[in-house]
């Protein structure tokens, strides 16, 4: 069937469900890449008024606590450290500048892979390479693999500062208190490739919300929204994946295994959401020599957010960026106040870049 026909069909399903339910439907996506894809494809402009699409805490940079960022900058200021980071983190402001403002000193390197970070350590034996390990379950296995590699090869000048987080505890935290007006979740396609679509069964079982896994093409997202609306209109709640090309029910067991070998789930601080139980990954004791927190005596304590910054409420989907008084005024992509604006996948950045500002 022509794509245009499929688009029309998905839009009809959504419109019919909204009419049938007669109330506003609120769907939350929890993946920064979905946030960006939705904005770039202009999907919101094609949805009926009754359907509200919220962005949740799906941007790993945005939910990284201020305390972690300040720890990163502390390490970047050390002459014996080489910071290896994904590009996403470079512009995040701490209390005293960012990695970008320090990059001119030459000890901050953008890497595309954790393997590049490990290689940096091999190539610079006189410095300690600290890999800024941020990301959800899609990215965590890549970190685990190189930690094991470093252990095997005895690469002593390599360590990671783990900021890895888990998606499902955040979803639970939202529904348990922070924002229970969420009717359903659009679930992240690539996280699901790792954890399996079956992982969302507990959300359906415990909270009765539909969970539909989608890829990132606009048609995928539209058809996932249509499936969610179909379920809601029928009073059902199920896990379903329409990302058939990639996602299985069980996920990537080899990746899950390597995460479990290297990391423990511990309580952790999420920007805007506060402390969430068993939601952050810390290196297991046997790998503590690669744990930058332990190596440099850094505490993982929550930092204080800039006054006036309402990223926390944005991350919970309680307000839209345009409702934040700083949005578009003191806080823009050129001079961001909070992480939701600075991260390329942040909700505020997406609104600012692709939406109208007034």
């Amino acid at each position, binding site marked *: 069937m022509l*794509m245009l026909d499929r*688009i029309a069909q998905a839009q009809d399903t959504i419109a019919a469900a909204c009419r049938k339910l007669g109330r506003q439907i609120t769907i939350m996506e929890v993946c*920064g890449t979905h946030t960006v894809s939705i*904005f*770039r*494809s*202009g*999907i*919101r*402009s*094609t949805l009926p008024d009754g359907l509200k699409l919220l962005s949740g805490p799906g941007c*790993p*940079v945005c939910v990284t606590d201020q305390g972690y960022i300040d720890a990163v900058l502390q390490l970047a200021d050390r002459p014996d450290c080489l910071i290896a980071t*994904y*590009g*996403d983190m*470079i*512009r995040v402001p701490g209390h005293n500048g960012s990695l970008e403002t320090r990059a001119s000193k030459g000890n901050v*390197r*953008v*890497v*595309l892979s954790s393997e*590049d970070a490990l290689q940096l350590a091999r190539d610079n034996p006189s410095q300690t390479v600290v890999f800024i390990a*941020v*990301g*959800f379950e*899609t*990215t965590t296995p890549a970190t685990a693999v190189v930690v094991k590699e470093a252990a095997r090869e005895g690469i002593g000048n390599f360590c990671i500062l783990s900021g890895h987080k888990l998606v499902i505890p955040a979803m639970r935290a939202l529904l348990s208190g922070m924002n229970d007006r969420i009717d359903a979740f659009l679930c992240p396609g690539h996280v699901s490739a790792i954890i399996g679509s079956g992982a969302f069964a507990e959300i359906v079982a415990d909270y009765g919300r539909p969970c539909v896994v989608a890829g990132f093409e*606009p*048609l995928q997202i*539209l058809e996932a929204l249509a499936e969610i609306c179909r379920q809601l209109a029928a009073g059902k709640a199920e896990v379903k994946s329409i990302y058939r090309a990639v996602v299985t029910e069980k996920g990537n067991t080899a990746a899950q295994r390597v995460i479990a070998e290297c990391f423990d789930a511990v309580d952790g601080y999420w920007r805007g959401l506060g402390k969430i139980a068993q939601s952050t990954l810390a290196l297991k004791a046997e790998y503590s020599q690669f744990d930058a927190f332990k190596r440099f005596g850094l505490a993982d304590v929550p930092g204080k957010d800039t006054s006036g910054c309402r990223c926390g409420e944005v991350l919970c989907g309680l307000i839209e960026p345009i409702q934040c008084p700083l949005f578009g005024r003191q806080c823009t*992509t*050129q001079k961001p106040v909070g992480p939701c604006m600075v991260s*390329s*996948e942040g909700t505020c950045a997406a609104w*600012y*870049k*692709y*939406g*109208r*500002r*007034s």
Partner: protein
Amino acid sequence: MAANPERILLAHGGGGQLTNQLIRERIVPKFRNETLAELTDAARLTLSSPAICFTTDSYVVKPLFFKGGDIGKLAVCGTVNDLAVSGSKPMVLSLALIIEEGFEIELLEQILQSISVAARENEVTIVTGDTKTVERGSADGLFINTSGIGIRLPNVELGFGKIEVGDQVLLSGSIGDHGMTIVSQREGINFESPLTSDCAGLAELTCALFEKVPGIRFMRDPTRGGLAATLNEVVEASRLGIEIGERAIPVRPAVQAAADMLGFDVLNAANEGKFVAIVSPQAAPECLRLCRAHRLGREASIIGGIVPARDVPLVELVTKIGGRRIVQMPYGRELPRIC
């Protein structure tokens, strides 16, 4: 490659013997013309018309050599294009080199050769120049500045003020080729790829358009900041809106795939062989036809039009699925993103 390649010394920029030797033996022969051969302090020119365009640009690209060109070719084509899109026929260029001590002379020769070839292809003459050297570490190997003069074409009046609601936006070809090629070769991001820069001088095509089709209001080459920057500059200055269609914008699959992998936006990627023209609705079909009949414009496309501004003049994109979103002025530095 010689075991001990000949290198530039600081003395080569000292104005004495070595400088003269470098100029007479390596530089001037590449640009055989009477004006340059005189080696006077200034080139004495007699132009056919006093109505001229004058522009300058500096080239600091890294890497110096890339698929589809090098800094030399870029230095000629970039300045030629600034003159071309301003409604003039490029005639002469100046060539200023700032060379880092230690730079391999063999590489300098290659770049000079590229400049020579590009100048000939674009029918411009290098009439004057300058050569300086700087200490090791003060330049990324080589910086180039070219300034250029073009003769203004008759009956061509371009400007933001000429743009009207209903005018069409014409793009001469695929976007993102140069930007993604450079990114793919830059240190730290290494992937092999069929991407090549679109670096090319456009004067042959632009002059033909200006000569044959009245009703061209404005033209610009979308270099740094890409198509997004150029269109935003237009709405900012004209105070009108622009609406473009994603499906009408040509992008090579390899360019899109590279951008997808790195999280870049092709709308923000640099182009070095393309132009955007705002033309009257009457002129649009003929402009499109002329472009497509020319090797430099085979994939030309009408990508959108000028619309009234609502509250704020904006560039709006109609997406592949029929949705809408805004195209903002890019930040200024694209960073690869993973998570």
